């Protein structure tokens, strides 16, 4: 399982890209913002795309009573995510090495992938919960209270994925480079699984 092990190691290491590159990106554009405002969501916190974007997004959002974009220390996620990602990368490397020396079979690789997938879904769920709270838990003293045609308070929840029109803003929410590296990594581990399966069977048949 030499090849599979190496691919597994490379795949897991791609996760480390999340320490350098953002996981997600949300852009807010409007006619009076020819250069759209944007936030990059990293596993360790949220940063503006431009230096003062966070301050300016908060400034706009205060009219409708949205909370300020949280600082890293204000959310447990930003402490846990790096540990989870670091841990999964380490685990993947260990599985890769063990696979390389034939100490573990291809089911170990798949196990890692399933765990990663479950954690990913949990992460997305958590992220969506946060977006919902951020977009609907509004200050009752808000200056502007907008309602939907049916009279319910308007939600300002940014989309988890894709484009949405919110008042005068076009909001785009898409994975960013860190996420693509992670996806690539997961895809490689899937490749490792199939190659490993083949290699393992060859060893067995000998």
């Amino acid at each position: 399982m030499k090849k599979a092990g190496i691919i597994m190691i490379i795949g897991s290491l791609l996760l480390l890209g999340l320490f350098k590159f953002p996981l997600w990106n949300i852009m807010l554009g409007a006619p009076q913002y020819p250069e759209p405002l944007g936030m990059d969501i990293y596993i360790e916190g949220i940063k503006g795309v431009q230096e003062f974007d966070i301050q300016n997004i908060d400034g706009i959002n205060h009219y409708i009573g949205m909370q300020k974009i949280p600082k890293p220390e204000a959310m447990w996620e930003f402490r846990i995510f790096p540990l989870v990602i670091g841990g999964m990368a380490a685990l993947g490397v260990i599985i890769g090495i063990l696979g390389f020396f034939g100490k573990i079979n291809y089911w170990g690789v798949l196990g890692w992938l399933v765990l990663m997938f479950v954690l990913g879904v949990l992460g997305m769920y958590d992220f969506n919960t946060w977006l919902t709270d951020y977009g609907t838990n509004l200050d009752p003293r808000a200056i502007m209270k907008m309602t939907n045609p049916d009279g319910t308070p308007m939600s300002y929840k940014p989309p988890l994925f894709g484009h949405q029109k919110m008042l005068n803003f076009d909001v785009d929410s898409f994975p960013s480079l860190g996420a693509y590296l992670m996806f690539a990594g997961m895809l490689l581990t899937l490749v490792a699984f199939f190659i490993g399966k083949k290699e393992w069977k060859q060893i067995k048949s000998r």
Partner: protein
Amino acid sequence: MKKSIKIIASLLLTIGLFGCDNDNKKKDGNRGALASNAAEKVYVAPGDHDEFYAFISGGYSGNLTVYGLPSGRMFKEIPVFSQFPTNGYGYSEETKPMLNTSHGFIPWDDSHHPDISQTSGKLDGRWIFINGNNTPRIAKIDLKTFETTEIIEVPNSAGNHSSSFVTENTEYVVAGTRFSVPVPQQDMPIKEYKGKFKGALSFISVAPETGRMNIKFQLLMPGFNYDLAHPGRGKSHGWFFFTTYNTEEANSLLEVNASQNDKDFIAAINWKKIEEYVNNGGGKTMPANYAHNVYDDETHNATSTMMKEVLVVDPLEVPGAVFLLPTPKSPHGVDVDPSGEYIIGNGKLSADLTVHSFTKMIDAIENKKFDGDAYGIPILNFEDILSGTVKQAGLGPLHTEFDGKGNAYTTFFISSELVKWDVETREVIDRKPNYYSVGHVMIPGGNSAEPFGKYAVSMNKITKDRYLPTGPELEHSAQLFDISGEKMELLLDFPTHGEPHYAAGIPASIIKENSQKIFKLAENKHEYAALSVNDAKVERDGNEVHVYMTMIRSHFTPDNIEGIKVGDKVYFHITNHEQDFDVPHGFAMIGANNSELLIMPGQTKTLVWEPKQVGVWPFYCTDFCSALHQEMQGYVRVSPKSSNIELSWSLGDD
């Protein structure tokens, strides 16, 4: 018979053709088809940017205005020498020192000739310099912020007209005096002018990195009037040329008495030679008193320093540095072509243009072919240095610019026209009437080795019927010509503010990427800045009250202040906490005897208010900043002098 029919027919045809021609001409005169073509050429679609910036001096407005070419749209008025209530320049405590002089606070000047900094003879777009004519001053405007960041007063000078032009690496910006005066100033009979008055030509060095100005030396020239100047470039780099009038040294009725000599001079100054002399310890320091005002973008404050001496140089002490080039009758403009070879002197009372040759000038100097001297300064022979003349080109030539393609464009004030001619052959190529009485003409980069010869802007002194009438007072008119073809084409008329003299143009691409959008709050080093809302406070120091106030969409912190008394001097130090492009906030206080403030993101400005009446007085934001702009306000309670109400302030407490 047949022959005669042919002749008659051809005659009729010719007449017919002429008739058609005349009709066409009339149509052109009434605009028509041509005008729609011109409209396309100046049309800049909504959201698109102009190709060039044009910086047009404001003359008696004391300011500099920024226009776009080819649209002729005005983008900004930059206050330089004049107080400007629009944003509080010259009224705010931080900017008052900018207008300090040896005569005290002077809130106005007559701004004439802007010139953009150069590197290797090319426009670099870092700074633009402009002269104050009335109280001699040179200002530097930073083209990152489009704000005046430095003003230096020029001592021993009066009517700072032959100014401000920069050398090809911005080594110097010159400030030549128009009026000769006693140096040092003294109480003496005006009749004794001749031989006793001096004309100071000041060379102000510009530090390459910071742009900091410093009067390196003043050349004390004979008591002529020094009208305009231009630097040499290329082969003539190291020389500066000044036109003179009143070489008669008359002191009364100059209209007649200064127009007697058939030839006046262009003074050719080898500044490199004088610089070397000064660097080796030459020249004399003499007592002087002049202000040097510097604005700092981090402290958001100007400081004014009174300078106490200046280095003067007698031209006779530096042989081979100063020569006089005879030039027909009262020359106004002196312009050097992009190659640096031709020095064009325009005798404003002459119909001819005089083109001197730099090579011939050097040759005559080397061969010591002099025709006498003036106060010891060698005069060259007119014929020895003359390259040629443009004969009968028009009436009253003033200024010449170049397109970089071998053509020169000269304005004629009396005949009110712009004339295009070939620099080498001196043949007139085209002429276009100007509406009316043109002064300067500007081609972007026209005062550099590399002009951008696509447009020419003429600045007219008289407007008359060009726009809807606005009573007896009209704004001046500028005219934009397309000069990319063989013939010039008038594209656009647009009004300009004040009395524009010269202008400077530059491709937008050189400047716009460097333009600053905000001041970073984190870099704000203003002594009284409130960098966080927690720094907002009010402090009393005797009868002075200092309010440290912050502003952000859409409130002031604090917004209620009590404990102010009649007779107090209240300093509102206000910091704009926005960090977003183009979100200034304003501040106006009822009864303040000065102006408003317009405060840019990250900036701190100070307004002084001296309440004279008891009451509760509002203040508010003057710049429509947000949906809640009208709510951006506050109150100050003013109690009697004897009151013992404690100083207090609040925001949002009910």
